[in-house]
């Protein structure tokens, strides 16, 4: 079985693809009986240091409905200089440039190791990246100061030729003109009035070919588009100016009376930002970066009124249909998000406040455009500062880890159709022969637009096997999928990455064990989780849980080995062994449980879950727990209350939080100050070890996790206690004895109970 693990790992490293099934059931009926759909997690821009891009255009299949890219799976007739498309079987002439082609002189795209290949192509003028800061000024002085410093710092991190723009908002929205000398100039908009894109452009003077102020100078050649507008200027020419401008930013001057929230026009500010870019730079890479310190309180997109006595909506209110602004606000932001996506721009939301800021309503802005969503308590925290800095991180090759305006085109063999995708994307509504009528996620298309992505952005793509049961296993025995991702590289180059993969077909009746063995339970857990979370956005929580449970039971029924009605006989093969546990933790995760989470937090968690790669997603589903003790080297331990021992230090990584938990004894030792005594230096080291490991995680993760250092009995220990499997609770405390582990005060079922129940249901002949 190690071979399959290796195969999966190899494929992931090379192609950034992980399928739930690596051997495919050959008919529709069998595929549906597999319970877990045939699907994959695709990381389109997975960082590949060993993949130098080629500097020419890809060769396309000439059939207009296909246009698949020449790949190693194609059959090539070197003498006739012909190649056959492996998707539609069209025979194609090689272009003239390939005249010298032969068995020994192959272009890269035909070599098997280039199942993933990247082309650099020349398409249209290259426009610099655009960063439009949209800043809330209704902040506390301290917060605003910190934010200003972060922003000023960020100017030095931007690509030198990048264009920057600045919009500030509070009660009013100000669009700052950056090109002017001396007097600083801004256009001001009422925060309560919804303006159309046309109105915004008229009011900003963008409708005319050139701004009147610039007319005094000789006009540029008319066919050359104006590279900058008054509001978006190259960072290298105005960074001094902008630094000063940011430095002079004041808190929103309008008085806020006692018992009121400041009037915050987030909705209009975003609308103007979107309209501005729409009018000036459609279809070029641009980030709208929204920094907000509270909920929108007026105008379109308002989430809560300005009366402090009416609190912002909670899940309880939403269930009771008591959130009066939610629907309207959501609609406003959805419209904006869709417009932004249509323009190929993205919206980041950096929301830092102790209370909710309306992420629930605004989430689509980031979700549909591939923007970042960052939530923190204050702009004056390292969580925000570090996270924001990491937006501009560079990869190993010195390139920004961001790409823009991508379109993902998926092509399949005839036996497969595309059911949909889940990830930070929008549909491009490309209907075609390979589009399934059944939708999973964002379906009905074979193309999606991902306005912004980074090397870890991962989409879940769901397929449907359409081969009929009685049809033979398809010719060649392999099914193929091609992913074509066209995008704007951070260097502003246009690039196309093509990944072509193939998997064997197998007859589920005769070769079930092959299919079973090729099951990727990690990928499957994430893919199912994405479906569940996707459903949870629109359906009631309990329905989703029931659905997940049913799927799990069906899977166990299908692949478990058991005697009917004998739960004790139930066994799962190794390739399925972890899956139920993933599901157990998923059920308890904040992605599906809203209890104890605000709507904003739920939106935030779900946002990240829908875009991270497999490893990170798994951490989110089932946090990782390490134990540090004198008894041996640090080791991963079960995410179980039994792992909580007095003489251990635990390090838990939930993706969103890093928790260091000192066991009771360790905490007492620390209080006694042993770590400062030379003779107990080993204790000092022990204390230090998890800190170092935590630092390592903190360094690389985006967004920066919340770092929690706590100890036995500490109030923050709840972060750990709420995650571990409650194998010991106050209910069964005496049965288990007090020696091992810590009891959790919860009525939640433990994994043991869950598994027992699962077995019972799986083996039951009644279901």
């Amino acid at each position, binding site marked *: 079985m190690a071979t399959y693990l290796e195969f999966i790992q190899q494929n992931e490293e090379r192609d950034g693809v992980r399928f739930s099934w690596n051997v495919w059931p050959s008919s529709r009926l069998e595929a549906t009986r597999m319970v877990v759909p045939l699907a994959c997690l695709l990381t389109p821009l997975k960082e590949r240091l060993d993949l130098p891009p080629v500097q020419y255009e890809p060769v396309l299949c000439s059939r207009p409905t296909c246009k698949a890219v020449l790949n190693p799976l194609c059959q090539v007739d070197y003498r006739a200089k012909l190649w056959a498309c492996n998707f539609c079987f069209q025979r194609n002439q090689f272009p003239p440039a390939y005249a010298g082609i032969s068995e020994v002189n192959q272009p890269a795209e035909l070599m098997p190791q280039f199942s993933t290949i990247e082309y650099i192509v020349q398409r249209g003028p290259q426009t610099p990246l655009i960063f439009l800061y949209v800043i809330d000024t209704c902040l506390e002085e301290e917060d605003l100061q910190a934010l200003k410093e972060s922003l000023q710092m960020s100017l030095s991190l931007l690509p030198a030729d990048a264009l920057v723009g600045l919009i500030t908002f509070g009660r009013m929205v100000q669009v700052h003109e950056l090109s002017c000398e001396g007097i*600083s100039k801004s256009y*001001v908009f*009422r925060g309560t009035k919804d303006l159309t894109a046309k109105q915004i452009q008229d009011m900003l003077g963008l409708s005319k070919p050139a701004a*009147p102020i610039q*007319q005094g100078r000789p006009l540029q050649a008319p066919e050359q588009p104006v590279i900058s507008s008054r509001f978006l200027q190259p960072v290298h020419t105005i960074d001094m100016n902008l630094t000063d401008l940011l430095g002079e930013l004041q808190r929103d*001057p309008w008085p806020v009376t006692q018992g009121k929230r400041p009037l915050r026009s987030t909705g209009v500010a975003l609308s103007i930002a979107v309209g501005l870019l729409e009018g000036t730079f459609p279809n070029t890479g641009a980030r709208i970066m929204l920094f907000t310190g509270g909920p929108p309180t007026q105008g379109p997109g308002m989430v809560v009124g300005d009366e402090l006595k009416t609190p912002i909506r909670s899940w309880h209110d939403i269930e009771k249909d008591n959130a009066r602004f939610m629907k309207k606000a959501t609609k406003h932001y959805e419209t904006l998000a869709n417009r932004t996506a249509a323009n190929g721009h993205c919206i980041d939301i950096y929301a830092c406040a102790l209370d909710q800021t309306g992420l629930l309503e605004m989430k689509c802005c980031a979700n549909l455009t591939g923007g970042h969503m960052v939530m923190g308590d204050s702009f004056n925290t390292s969580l925000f500062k570090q996270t924001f800095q990491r937006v501009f991180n560079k990869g190993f090759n010195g390139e920004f880890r961001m790409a823009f305006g991508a379109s993902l085109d998926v092509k399949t063999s005839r036996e497969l159709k595309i059911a949909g995708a889940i990830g930070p994307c929008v549909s491009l509504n490309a209907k075609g022969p390979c589009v399934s009528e059944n939708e999973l996620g964002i379906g009905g298309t074979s193309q999606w637009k991902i306005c912004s992505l980074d090397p870890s952005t991962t989409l879940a793509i769901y397929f449907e096997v359409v081969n009929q049961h009685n049809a033979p296993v398809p010719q060649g025995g392999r099914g193929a999928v091609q992913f074509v991702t066209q995008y704007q590289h951070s260097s502003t180059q246009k690039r196309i990455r093509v990944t072509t993969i193939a998997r064997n077909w197998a007859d589920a009746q005769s070769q079930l064990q092959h299919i079973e063995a090729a099951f990727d339970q990690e990928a499957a857990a994430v893919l199912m989780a994405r479906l569940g979370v996707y459903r949870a956005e629109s359906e009631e929580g309990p329905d989703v849980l029931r659905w997940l449970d049913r799927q799990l039971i069906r899977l166990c029924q299908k692949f478990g080995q058991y005697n009917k009605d004998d739960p004790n006989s139930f066994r799962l093969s190794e390739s399925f062994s972890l899956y139920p546990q993933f599901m157990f933790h998923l059920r308890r995760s904040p992605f599906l449980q809203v209890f104890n989470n605000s709507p904003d937090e739920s939106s935030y968690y779900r946002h990240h879950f829908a875009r991270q790669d497999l490893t990170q997603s798994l951490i989110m589903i089932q946090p990782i727990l390490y134990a540090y003790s004198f008894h041996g080297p640090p080791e991963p331990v079960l995410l179980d209350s039994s792992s909580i021992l007095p003489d251990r230090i635990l390090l838990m990584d939930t993706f969103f939080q890093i928790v260091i938990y000192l066991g009771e004894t360790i905490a007492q030792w620390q209080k006694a100050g042993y770590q400062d005594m030379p003779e107990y230096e080993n204790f000092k080291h022990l204390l230090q070890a998890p800190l170092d490991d935590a630092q390592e995680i903190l360094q690389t993760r985006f967004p920066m996790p919340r770092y929690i250092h706590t100890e036995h009995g500490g109030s923050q220990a709840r972060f750990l206690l709420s995650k571990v499997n409650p194998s010991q609770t106050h209910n069964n405390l005496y049965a288990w004895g007090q020696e091992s582990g810590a009891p959790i005060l919860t009525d939640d079922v433990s994994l043991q109970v869950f598994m027992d129940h699962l077995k019972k249901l799986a083996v039951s002949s009644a279901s």
Partner: protein
Amino acid sequence: PGFAPPPSSTGIGPSSYPPATGAPRPPTMPGPPLPGQTVAGPPASQPNHVSSPPPPSAMSGPHPAPPVSGLHGPPPPTHPPQPGYQMQQNGSFGQVRGPQPNYGGAYPGTPNYGSQPGPPPPPKRLDPDSIPSPIQVIEDDRSNRGSEPFVTGVRGQVPPLVTTNFLVRDQGNASPRYIRCTSYNIPCTSDMAKQSQVPLAAVIKPLATLPPEETLPYLVDHGESGPVRCNRCKAYMCPFMQFIEGGRRFQCCFCSCVTEVPPHYFQHLDHTGKRVDFYDRPELSLGSYEFLATVDYCKNNKFPSPPAFIFMIDVSYNAVKSGLVRLICEELKSLLDYLPREGNMEESAIRVGFVTYNKVLHFYNVKSSLAQPQMMVVSDVADMFVPLLDGFLVNVNESRTVIASLLDQIPEMFADTRETETVFAPVIQAGLEALKAAECAGKLFIFHTSLPIAEAPGKLKNRDDKKLINTDKEKTLFQPQTSFYNNLAKDCVAQGCCVDLFLFPNQYLDVATLGVVTHQTGGSIYKYAYFQLETDQDRFLNDLRRDVQKEVGFDAVMRVRTSTGIRATDFFGAFYMSNTTDVEMAGLDCDKTITVEFKHDDKLSEDSGALLQCALLYTSCAGQRRLRIHNLSLNCCTQLADLYRNCETDTLINYLAKYAYRGVLSSPVKTVRDALINQCAQILACYRKNCASPSSAGQLILPECMKLLPVYLNCVLKSDVLQPGLEVTTDDRAYIRQLVTSMDVAETNVFFYPRLLPLTKADVDSDSLPAAIRNSEERLSKGDIYLLENGLNIFVWVGVNVQQGLIQNLFGVSSFSQISNALSTLPVLENPFSKKVRSIIDMLQVQRSRYMKLIIVKQEDKLEMLFKHFLVEDKSLSGGASYVDFLCHMHKEIRQLLS
């Protein structure tokens, strides 16, 4: 003065009408057949002998002792012996039955008539010297009453004329500088008033500037409970209140209600019934004084904040190109140090703000803590708002450097602008919103250049149409083209936002509409057509300086209370009224005048007379809430003769002009003119019938006080609003209409009958002005230089035969032909004549509330047409009658009424 031409029955041919074309004489003087044509009477043969002894016929008038003098009692010694002017009927008056060919509608005469050098000595039928002369009346009053101070202690005293320099001593009645009445003796009954047709009106200038010799109204503080007032009619404590019951109560002089004297105000009475503290309390001994208002008198029961001035500058292409923007910015830099301040304060409490605009508005943050001003553009003109709170309105001293930097940069920023379209209503809205946000009253100074055609609320279209003149639709030219501005004005008044408008049009910009807000908020309009930096800069800057510096009150409400029996029924001026009694003005400056008309609603008694109390509640420039009270007591009469003896024609004309100018909004101009003539004819006919001693029906007998009524009325009728000259634009008419509505008596006097001074007769060694002469071309001599001023313009007319030496002295050129009529100022030359003329001009400029435009007119030059328009005793090109003709017409009307 008396004039009785020999009876003639020979008036035959000359009345032929229409006159034969080409006939040398009749078309130019198509008046009624004239006695002069008989070439018989001695007056006709000596038309110009002003100093010649009165013609024998005058002496031989039927009543050598003038009819009116009997009613008047002994005439003042210097008065001419015959106060009544008698014009003997001649046959022609009776003969003509049809419309007077020389009066009324368009004058069919040849257009170049007026430019003919010197009227050919026509066979006179009426000696211009023998008809009442405004100059004579003014001179007489000056010499009679100019020397003594006018003491206001006596009820019903007629003050000296506005043209007379006199001092006022307040002894219980308001100075005539504050209030002037059409009559100081009011008929006791409404029947009498109706019979006489004399309008009862008061022209009130509540914040009038006083000469330095006179004291400003004292400020009285009645403490927390506020000014002492009558319980019923709420009249304020004044000298006419009667204290009774040993001073414990007082009886209201207006409504007779008895009110308890508040304990803190109690004072014992002396043996005459006067309070012991009579002389210590201005409100008991003076006609004018101020009360400090309490919080009850403030909006929202909150003491007001100091007001703000917002300067709003059009920066569209025209404004920038003409250099206007730079000029304004330069001027503001120094002008801001001269904002009005309360007498004893170190610096002005007024805050300032700046806006520029074209199609969009630019607000400026000039907070003192900023290194550079910040500009905030609001392009959402459909829904105006103020984009900033802090830093828009600032103290000049604190933000001095930021403001200076801003004013330096504004002309630079817009130097290359190509924007030609402007908005207007949003500009006012912006100012209004800013004041609202700052919770204060204030004034907007808007500098605007063009018709606001950009897409925005209050957008206007060019609807100027000369063809409408003399049609029933002419009134639409004076009406605003949209009601939008009326509503805006209402909002402005509610906030105390006064709008001053400086217009620099190069074409029609619809003053009638743009001026609505200005007018209703008590603001001023200044108009500089075809503004050119070189010629108009001085005038504009002087106006601007004066406008910014002058004393002004904000958020004002004025109410006029009267004795039971009469009631204020109608109001004229720049203000807004939300009910029938309260005159509301967002701003009221020292030049603004309100004319109030009274009507009887009951009887008055001769004993108690009639009292007026004008109370003005306003916020001073330092933000203090105050009440200014003016009291005036008038006599009442049961004899019409008493009424006619105590009238004031200048005030009457002020009222009539305002009444007529309002009339053009709703009636055709012709109707308005006819109504005016009719009313005056009735006034005079009533006099003739009831007060003049019996005399021949053919005699025109005028009351002494009203002997100038015909000439002045004719001037009103010929004015550009009621009978536009050829060159007068629709905007000019609307502008003048609005100006006149706020004018005081002195201004209307000189506006309608301009002052014409022979400069060459000036005594270079004294300070005095040369004696004025009458406004007629025949009074001009080719060898002299004249100055004519009407409050808006100064003309310097140079005759063709003026000595070269004078021309050299005045213009610095050697000959008449070298005089440039493009001059807007006289060159500064070091010779007595030049100095004298310039000092005269300076003196005149100081007297007027607006800086007058100086126009050099050379005789026989094209510009002379314009000049002649102001020679109001002559027939005007646009058809206005000459004084003589009008007097004849008036006489005819009166006779018709009498018969």
